[in-house]
């Protein structure tokens, strides 16, 4: 047994040796090979003295060993192989592993790590909040650049939505994911333990850090992200997420029910975010652009009545389509839209007036939905000013004078330093994107299909250069009359 623990403890090489990446890569592969060869003995040893195994396999220094120990212990706990194993100890191992794993070593045991993460995401080890926090932190550490979508995203997002712990997963939901599993792999010739290796190279199905995903998986992730932002009342980000589900690429006129559900919510959160109907970006599929409005007439009518300027069409649209909202599960969002109507009317007054009396505001919004007295209007304005949704000052009249709302400039002049900082930030983002584009270009340029397509094109171009008429003359039948298009049939035989 001591021998087995010696094997477990034989990695990583001592720090004092200052080994190079290549040696570490070699040592990790050797270590995994040895562990696989002695798996049965090791399992027995871990189950008989798991406390010692846990002590040896510290995830900070030996993530590979820790993954194995965690896997053995969770299997044992699941199958109840050993009654001596305390669940608390297993929970501790899992907690330590997910929160302190080594970001380089974990790339060698991707599938094992992923299966542990997936099992934790089922929520049977920790409270939902802790599960969401742990999984979110693990995903963030695996991919610091935050650009690669993995099969772990959707379960975590759905867990957060179901258990109402949105805050915990925001760090990963906020990411701009631009790479997806299933893209052609590229021979990069770099070591997995290279700290500078871009994440799309190591978060792949071949390393096991992600599984293959289906289009519906990614679509649903965007849809759930939109719902998560909706629960946070972050309408702008919710609109962006739903928009990604609506504009999701498709072919052969293929669209999804998820996209349609997202489209309905996209219209509603668009109204809440900007007070105007959102517009689809130019890369939206033509089929989607034409068919979705036809399929969602109730929502289109609601949008039009919101912008009509009078409340009657809005209230009648909301009441006549109550069954539709209930069926689609959008009642609460529709109620939000109705609630926001008066506030957007006030905000839009800034485009017309520089200052106006409260009585006039009262008159403008009293015709909308419900009547408010002057005190209610002032309370509403104060709450809007306090929340930052209205940049204005409320000037209370003295001695019988009327109260006035004075609109302020909603954009403030930035100082030179702030402006320079903002520009530098944008520059940094664009530079990072340029790197990602280079990566995609390299990846697609070495794709087998692309290379064979280019070879074919080159061949064709050379052929055309030699013979500008192509095969036209060769394809002409001898007796074909070009002017009439008739074929003269030779009946002499």
């Amino acid at each position, binding site marked *: 047994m001591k021998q087995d623990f010696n094997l477990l403890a034989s990695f990583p090489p001592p720090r004092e040796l200052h080994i190079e990446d290549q040696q570490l890569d070699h040592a990790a592969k050797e270590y995994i090979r040895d562990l696989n060869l002695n798996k049965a003995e090791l399992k027995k040893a871990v189950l008989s003295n798991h406390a010692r195994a846990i002590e040896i396999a510290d995830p900070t220094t030996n993530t590979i060993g820790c993954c194995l120990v965690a896997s053995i212990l969770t299997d044992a706990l699941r199958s109840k192989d050993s009654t001596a194993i305390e669940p608390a100890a297993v929970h501790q191992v899992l907690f330590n592993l997910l929160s302190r794993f080594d970001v380089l070593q974990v790339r060698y045991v991707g599938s094992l790590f992923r299966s542990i993460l997936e099992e934790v995401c089922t929520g049977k080890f920790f409270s939902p909040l802790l599960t969401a926090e742990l999984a979110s932190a693990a995903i963030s550490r695996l991919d610091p650049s935050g650009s690669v979508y993995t099969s772990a995203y959707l379960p975590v997002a759905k867990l957060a939505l179901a258990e109402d712990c949105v805050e915990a997963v925001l760090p990963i939901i906020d990411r701009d994911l631009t790479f997806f599993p299933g893209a*052609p792999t590229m021979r990069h010739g770099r070591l997995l333990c290279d700290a500078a290796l871009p994440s799309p190279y190591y978060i792949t199905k071949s390393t096991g850090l992600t599984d293959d995903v289906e289009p519906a998986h990614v679509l649903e992730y965007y849809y759930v992200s939109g719902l998560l932002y909706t629960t946070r009342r972050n309408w702008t980000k919710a609109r962006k997420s739903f928009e990604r589900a609506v504009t999701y690429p*498709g072919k*052969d006129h293929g669209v*999804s029910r998820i996209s349609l559900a997202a489209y309905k919510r996209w219209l509603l959160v668009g109204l809440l975010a900007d007070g105007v109907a959102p517009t689809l970006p130019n*890369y939206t599929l033509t089929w989607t652009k034409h068919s979705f409005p036809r399929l969602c007439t109730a929502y289109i009518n609601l949008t039009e009545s919101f912008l009509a300027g009078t409340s009657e069409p809005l209230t009648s649209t909301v009441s006549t389509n109550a069954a539709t909202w209930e069926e689609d599960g959008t009642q609460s969002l529709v109620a939000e839209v109705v609630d926001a109507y008066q506030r957007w009317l006030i905000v839009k007054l800034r485009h017309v007036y520089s200052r106006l*009396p409260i009585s006039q505001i009262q008159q403008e919004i009293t015709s909308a939905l419900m009547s408010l007295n002057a005190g209610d209007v002032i309370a509403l304005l104060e709450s809007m000013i306090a929340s930052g949704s209205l940049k204005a000052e409320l000037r209370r009249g003295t001695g019988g004078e009327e109260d006035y709302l004075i609109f302020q400039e909603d954009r403030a*002049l*930035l100082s030179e330093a702030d402006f320079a900082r903002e520009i530098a930030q*944008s520059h940094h983002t*664009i530079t990072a994107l340029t790197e990602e584009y280079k990566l995609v270009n390299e990846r697609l340029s070495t794709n087998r299909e692309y290379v064979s397509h280019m070879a074919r094109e080159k061949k064709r171009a050379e052929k055309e250069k030699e013979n500008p008429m192509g095969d036209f003359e060769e394809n002409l039948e001898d007796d074909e009359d070009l002017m009439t298009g008739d074929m003269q049939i030779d009946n002499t035989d």
Partner: protein
Amino acid sequence: MAHLTPDLQNYFGHMRQQGGVVVESEKPPGRTQFDRLLHIGRSSIPLCVDALKAAVKEAKAGGDVSRYNEAWENIRVAAPYEPEAIKDEEWIKRQNDINKKESTRLESNLSGYKQNGIKESIRMGNEDLGQHYEQIGKLREASDAYGRMRHEVSTTKHIMDCCQRLISVALQRRDWSSIISNIAKINSIQGVEDDRGMQPYIKIVSGIGYLGKGLFKEAADNLLQADLSAPADTFNDIATPNDVAIYGGLLALAVMDRDRLQTRVLDNPQFRVFLETESHIRKAITHFVSGRYSACLSILESYKADYLLDIYLSKHVETIFSRIRQKCITQYFVPFSCVTLDSLNETFAHDGQSIEAELVDMIRSGSLNARIDSESRLLVAVQSDPRLEMQYAALKAARKYGDEAKERLRRINLIAAGLEVKAGKQQPGGEIAWAEGAPLGAVS
């Protein structure tokens, strides 16, 4: 409107000899005369009965029974005790028989020409048939017959004739797109630009076509290029020079700024000839260019009733007037940083009314860049800070570039990973090809 009897001719001849002023109405001949009479009869209270009576008379002078029925239906309701309100069933029956016989004759002639296979005869046969259908009010059949002329054309004159016939029918059918497309065909004929005789016809018809479609800028551009030095007989069955002056002048006022009005309208020697026929339009434009906006508007208001009786203009009068009025208010405000609402009311509002609601609409639509200060009763120009604008424009451009680049990258990678949604099974009764994906709420 009434025919000039010999007695009247003698009377006006005598008046002329004595140096008196005699005004001749310049209403265009042809089929538009009936349309104009009927439109006036339907729109004008004082002229209603006279116009409808004249329309009935005009209809009976031709062979179009449907027109007679339309005019009679109107006069029957408007003036049931007039002699014209009694339906002339005998005339209808007789005219229907004549029309039917003539249609049969022309159709059999045409089939004879087709059997002989002489192209020119077939073309002329179609032309005759088209003219007949046009006269009896079968406009769709007329358009089809004229359209068939196109197959047998052999000279540019034939193409031009064919297009002009089609335009004539399209004008009666109010098919503005067809007018514009046929004008484009005439314009594509080689050498037509040198044909001075056709120039006013092309420009005026184009102007009316674009006006019908509500494209005021294009309409004004065409009408202002019309040249009256060419003979008026090419276009006077469509519009008189007075009509051209009114259409062109009003539309120019609605769409052009002061500089362009000066150079393209007042200083335009070709259009000036038209303007002389309607001096009030010239005065209104001159007032606008000189900054006397209320004078300009009051001239136009005094002639508004006339414009509403015009068959091509009536539908657009309110829009054109509203645009001119908005331009006047905007131009009035240009030299000031703020203007009192009272002075605006004094200049533009009708008696006892306020201009504030109109200003609100203009600001909301973006045609006026100003804000209303209800406390001081001022209209204040929006003063933008160039530095602030620059900062926000720069940051917005950078953000937009970054967002678009990310979005495109995301889509490239989704497609490269084969993650596009593909068409699934056709839903019964549904047009959408739904993808077979995981149902909502299920964990993949």
